[in-house]
């Protein structure tokens, strides 16, 4: 199923274009498999729970899943040579998400299908417009400014939902700016770091002033974003952005003292937040001992644990459990909901899908052609990994729970769009990387 298995073309010949039907055949099979499994799940939920209701959610979800096939066809037509597992893994996770959202909140299923369709449209547009990442060199500061403005706007006119996360309301739509800012910050960090890299990785004595001059804006934006997030109580996003920043800094510059300073700063910041903010204390205390207030603040996290425990190995079956006992079952607590109805088999499958997707994202970053591609790829891979871990581990009480969407799984439009754009960028990065690798292998000069 891998691309390397194909015989290399003879040296000195431009990479031949395969006939359409032979391109991305692994991806085709996997995307179709993900879609079929998703539709089976939706039909099962419909039959078990809403046999007398309209089929609209099932049809809408099936259409959304078919969208992945459309994206596949677009990639074939565009002769993308990039990774063939990224899209199917995203499709698989989206399918699980659609099935669970239909099961948990049938009234939201059609909307989630629409969000995924919108996200896939954004994916195609991004492939056409943003794929060549050289724009980052020019617009990196614009990214930072737009990102910060979005966060400031959220603080100023944002609406609070679910106690923590802030939303921007535009007409009848609510926008979760954090998801878009995530992409903007990756672009900004990548732009600044790619530029600063040659200087900062030179051998010889440290040049403190130059270092500060190069990294100063980075630090400034990072601290600014964190302050805004702490101000709006969004600890999950704060953790995500900070982790992203540290990972990209380390990857770009590779100095251990940066990482150490970053971790010390994180510990200090966390301690200060715990000391200053009651809501942080509540989160931590509830994590340490949810039993102390089992019917109150500990309720959500305990119900999550009970959901996982009641699921056991094979789960209660779709529609046969009680995940509705968990507040926010279709957003923050969707992973325990999967655990209850699909069991450890289900949660392990979901984690496996994530590992597949994230592994392939890192692979694209490792094989990327050039520092911007490499940094954006690694930044996206790290961001999505951290985000996934924070919410999966948080909703299962491995770490304190901070609300943040699980990529592709959780209900939400902003997340769908942002993650689909991330897939587009990763596919473009992977495409260039594979082409460059093929060129190098065949002895063609790098254009």
């Amino acid at each position: 199923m891998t691309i390397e298995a194909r015989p290399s073309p003879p040296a000195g010949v431009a990479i031949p274009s395969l006939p359409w039907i032979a391109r991305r055949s692994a991806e085709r099979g996997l995307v179709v498999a993900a879609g079929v499994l998703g539709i089976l799940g939706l039909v099962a939920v419909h039959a078990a729970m809403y046999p007398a209701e309209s089929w609209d959610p099932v049809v809408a979800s099936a259409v959304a899943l078919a969208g992945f096939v459309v994206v596949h066809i677009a990639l074939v037509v565009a002769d993308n040579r990039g990774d063939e597992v990224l899209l199917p893994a995203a499709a698989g996770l989206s399918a699980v998400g659609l099935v669970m959202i239909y099961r948990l909140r049938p009234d939201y299923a059609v909307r989630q299908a629409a969000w995924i369709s919108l996200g896939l449209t954004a994916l195609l547009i991004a492939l056409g417009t943003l794929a060549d990442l050289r724009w980052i060199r020019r617009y990196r500061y614009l990214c930072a400014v737009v990102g910060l403005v979005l966060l400031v706007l959220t603080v100023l006119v944002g609406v609070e939902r679910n106690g923590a996360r802030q939303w921007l309301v535009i007409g009848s739509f609510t926008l979760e700016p954090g998801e878009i800012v995530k992409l903007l910050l990756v672009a900004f960090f990548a732009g600044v770091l790619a530029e600063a890299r040659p200087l900062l990785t030179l051998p010889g004595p440290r040049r403190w002033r130059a270092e500060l001059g190069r990294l100063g804006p980075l630090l400034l934006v990072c601290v600014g974003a964190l302050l805004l997030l702490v101000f709006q109580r969004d600890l999950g996003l704060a953790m995500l952005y900070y982790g992203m920043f540290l990972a990209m800094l380390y990857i770009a510059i590779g100095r251990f003292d940066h990482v150490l300073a970053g971790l010390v700063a994180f510990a200090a910041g966390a301690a200060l937040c715990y000391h200053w903010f009651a809501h942080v204390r509540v989160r931590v205390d509830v994590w340490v001992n949810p039993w102390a207030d089992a019917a109150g603040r500990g309720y959500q996290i305990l119900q999550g644990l009970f959901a996982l425990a009641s699921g056991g190995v094979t789960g209660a079956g779709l529609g046969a459990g009680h995940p509705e006992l968990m507040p926010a079952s279709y957003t923050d607590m969707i992973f325990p909901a999967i655990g209850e109805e699909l069991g450890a088999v289900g949660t392990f499958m979901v984690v496996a899908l994530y590992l597949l997707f994230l592994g392939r994202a890192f692979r694209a970053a490792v094989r990327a052609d050039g520092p911007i591609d490499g940094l954006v790829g690694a930044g996206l891979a790290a961001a999505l990994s951290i985000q996934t871990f924070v919410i999966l581990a948080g909703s299962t009480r491995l770490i304190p729970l901070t609300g943040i969407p699980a990529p592709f799984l959780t209900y939400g439009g902003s997340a769908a769009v942002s993650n689909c754009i991330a897939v587009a960028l990763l596919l473009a990065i992977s495409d260039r990387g594979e082409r460059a690798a093929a060129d190098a292998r065949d002895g063609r000069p790098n254009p």
Partner: protein
Amino acid sequence: MVGRTRNVARLLAALFGVLLAYLACVQVIWGPQLAASPQNPRLALEAERIHWGRILDRRLTVLADSAGTGPSQVRRYPQGPDFANVLGYRSRRYGLTGIERRYDLALLGLPLTDPWEALQEVLGRAPQGNDVVLTLDAAVQAAAVRALGGARGAIVVLDPRTGGVLAMASRPGFDPRAIDAQWATLSHDPASPLFNRATQGQYPPGSSFKTVVLTAGLGSGRVRLTDAVTCPESIDVAGALIHNFEHEQFGQISVLQAFVASCNTAFVQIGQRTGAASVLAAARAYGLGQAVPYDLPTAGGYLPPLPDLGVRGLAQMSFGQGSLLVTPLQMALVAATVGNGGVMMRPFVVSQVRAPDGRIREAFAQRGSRRVIPATLALQLRQAMIQVVQRGTGTAAQLPGVTVAGKTGTAENPHGRTHAWFIAFAPAERPTVALAVIVENGGVGGDVAAPIARQVLAVALPAQTAAGARP
């Protein structure tokens, strides 16, 4: 940059590895215990869907079944409310207690592990919980409750060979059907009918504790049954006078006679010769001072720590007074251990979990054992206890044709009249029944508790013979 990207990927992969290991723990390893938490509302929701399993005695007499479906399902108790302190209640408002609570998952048939049953459930058949079979014998339990009558107290009857509990009575009792209706009365009643005295009541043991002191004395080699002691009317211990019950005095007697006549002043000397450390060690060996592992919640009682025991403390402990506290279950185990040749069987009351079609899912013949004292020592103690019933303070426990071994206790306490104790096993040569009886503020053990023990033994012994005759 490539190497560092890989490092970051490795670090994050390790985090996901931790997540997977943790998920395996929560969902698979800790799962069943966590899901059984009373804080988990899923159980109550499931309970409305499932036809609750029955609770049966060892002859499969139905002690609890249920009628109705869904929210109108109610427990029925064909044998009456005599078993309530063991079975517990099942209330939608006040939760579960007793076996209902401990075996809730089994009674609800959760988790549904059998694919065939899962399929039948999908096909719309109302799911049926498992039956729980107890070691209790309905006839013995009824006899125990009847023997206590209107008195406050408890009786624990067990099979010393297995540890299986034949009866466990706690009076006053309650009607488990009336929990919702009479909660305010029941929960505020000063006689504490909801309190399971048999396992959680903590009382001074009085002279029944002399069995433990004699164990320590004989076991340490510092005392022999034939040694001479004096039994004056009172004895001076560090300036405090300790009196015999009803000012009895027997002059110079043997240790055996002191035990048979239950002479306090003689036992003060036996305790002094044995030493506090040995007495406490023997008490601990019998499991006193610590909660007995059992299917229902148990209390541990109290053993004073050695440094707190002065000369007076040791003297009071020698006849079972002072700060000592024991539960009826613990004292029944003392008798059972002596009767069983020095080996204590871990007590249990659930012997089987059966599927609705009668298939046995889980079965226990016993739950483990522990040698407490050497067999020769157990033999000596048995002889002493036989004498108590034949010609000592426990003659009221005599049964025609059966040798009963026992020890009386009359425990002073701050709540008024003395508690009447009797611990016993029978037939003394090959015991099939061991028991402990306590009547709170009942008076003298030999007069009040021993006759009750006789009534219970009169039912329990034939019941054991009948049970032993079955395959």
